[in-house]
């Protein structure tokens, strides 16, 4: 007789690998084959997880059609089963999987569309955060401005793609003009994704502004982020950009880099 840990491990394998050989001996037949009984569970596991991926990646699903999506999802679920019980957190590895999935090789933009959808999903469920009062920057001595390390709205993220994934996404929303043709050659795009007033927003940024925000989002000091921005555009107006960040409520707090070149405190 199998112990409980072994029995559960074998049923998990039977469900994920579609190979019930190791478990059927433990299942009573009761008028129906053990394999058919195990298959009922397997069908539910794959159908429900495919539905969860389709809910997170509706545009990808539309672009490749539901049948192909189901095929890709099946392969993904086998190799990347959920590691937690919250379905809205499942599928973060799907864009990478699509990027390396040979049947998708003819759709090079697909993985980036998936990255955009995952980023929007994360933004939707991110923790709520309150914007910092701009006046708090008055506490910072002028010589320390470069050492500022801002905390940013946890729903905000920045995504760059060689493809016009924002246009692809918009063209494939319910109610959009499905007949519209997206010119894939208008990329690259630099996008800011962020939840505002309960809705996930998407907007394109200029290269320098993108560099500044993406660097701050990655935890860089204000000085390092400013350097990244001026590398894109030597005429970049840093003061105006900082005002915009504060007005948009993107910044939620700050600390000071302990010393030049050191990690943030």
């Amino acid at each position, binding site marked *: 007789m199998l112990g409980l840990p072994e029995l559960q491990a074998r049923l*998990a394998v039977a469900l994920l690998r579609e190979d019930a050989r190791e478990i059927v001996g433990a299942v009573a037949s*009761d008028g129906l084959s053990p394999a058919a009984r195990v298959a009922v569970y397997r069908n539910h596991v794959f159908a429900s997880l495919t539905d969860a991926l389709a809910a997170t990646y509706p545009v990808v699903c539309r672009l490749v059609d539901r049948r192909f999506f189901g095929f890709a999802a099946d392969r993904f679920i086998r190799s990347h089963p*959920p590691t937690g019980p919250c379905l809205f957190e499942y599928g973060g590895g799907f864009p990478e999987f699509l990027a390396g999935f040979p049947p998708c090789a003819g759709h090079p933009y697909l993985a980036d569309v998936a990255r955009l959808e995952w980023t929007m999903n994360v933004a939707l469920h991110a923790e709520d955060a309150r914007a910092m009062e701009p006046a708090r920057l008055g506490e910072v001595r002028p010589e320390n401005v470069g050492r500022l390390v801002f905390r940013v709205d946890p729903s905000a993220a920045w995504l760059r793609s060689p493809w016009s994934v924002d246009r692809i996404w918009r063209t494939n929303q319910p109610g959009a003009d499905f007949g519209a043709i997206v010119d894939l050659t208008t990329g690259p795009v630099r996008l800011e994704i962020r939840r505002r007033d309960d809705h996930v927003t998407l907007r394109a940024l200029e290269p320098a502004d993108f560099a500044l925000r993406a660097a701050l989002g990655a935890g860089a000091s204000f000085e390092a982020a400013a350097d990244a921005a001026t590398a894109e555009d030597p005429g970049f107006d840093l003061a105006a950009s900082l005002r915009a960040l504060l007005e948009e409520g993107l910044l939620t707090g700050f600390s000071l880099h302990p010393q030049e070149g050191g990690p943030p405190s």
Partner: protein
Amino acid sequence: MASEGVGVRSLPARAGIGLRSPHVAEVLAARPALSWLEVHPENYLGGGPAVGALDQLRSEYPMAFHAVGLSIGSAEGVDRRHLDRVRGLVERFEPALVSEHLAWSRSGGAYLNHLLPLPYTEESLAAVCRNVDAVQTALRRRILIENPSAYLRFACSTIPEAAFLAELARRTGCGLLCDVNNVHVTAQNLGLDAVGYLDAIPADAVAEIHLAGHSANDVDGRTLLIDDHGAPVDAAVWTLYEHALRRFGAVPTLVEWDTAVPPLEVLMGEARQADARRRAVSEDARAA
């Protein structure tokens, strides 16, 4: 009943509905007359509009949490990280009841998103008791455990499911959530007597009843009932519900609908029917 801390509204002994995302906006806008709501905590463990909506609903309706991911049947124990997140949500919203299933979904770090069956053995009973103890300790309250729908039985099982649940309740002090549709589905699929099953459940431990629809599928020439929560409550389940009410008394009842979710009004109609059956059963009892 579960321990009721300050600010926790208990559930009325009437029929509520399982709140699913397609209905959240409508319930928030129209505030329909619903006796109580039940939600899956796993859908509210992030931030954003979902949790904001739950905040508003919590002030308007009595609420229960019906967990699907604690995997209290796992030999490897309860996932502490997930349990901590659920505890945070329970502390924030103070639901009247918290329930979970007699099932497992986690093995080797993978979550299979299903309520998987246990062999009913002394080993399993010990593991489930440990896990239920861990959950009740973390949440600092009594939880309810629900009977699952089964499509298979393990040959090594030695304890009938109802007796397993009775012993689980006795050892851990947990309450029971009797899903009458699941009793019917399991009984049909495994060739058991549904009424005998209900009669073997300790009535004083039952603090909630669930109702839902199922579908009938032909598998290799045999009819298998699938607990898909995608149809009205079946006539046989309504009959079984009346038997359950006579056995367990008037306890809060919940109607669930998860696939092909119908308009809210249809779900409310099912809840009204459950209320009508409860009144009829209690009038019969008085007349007798």
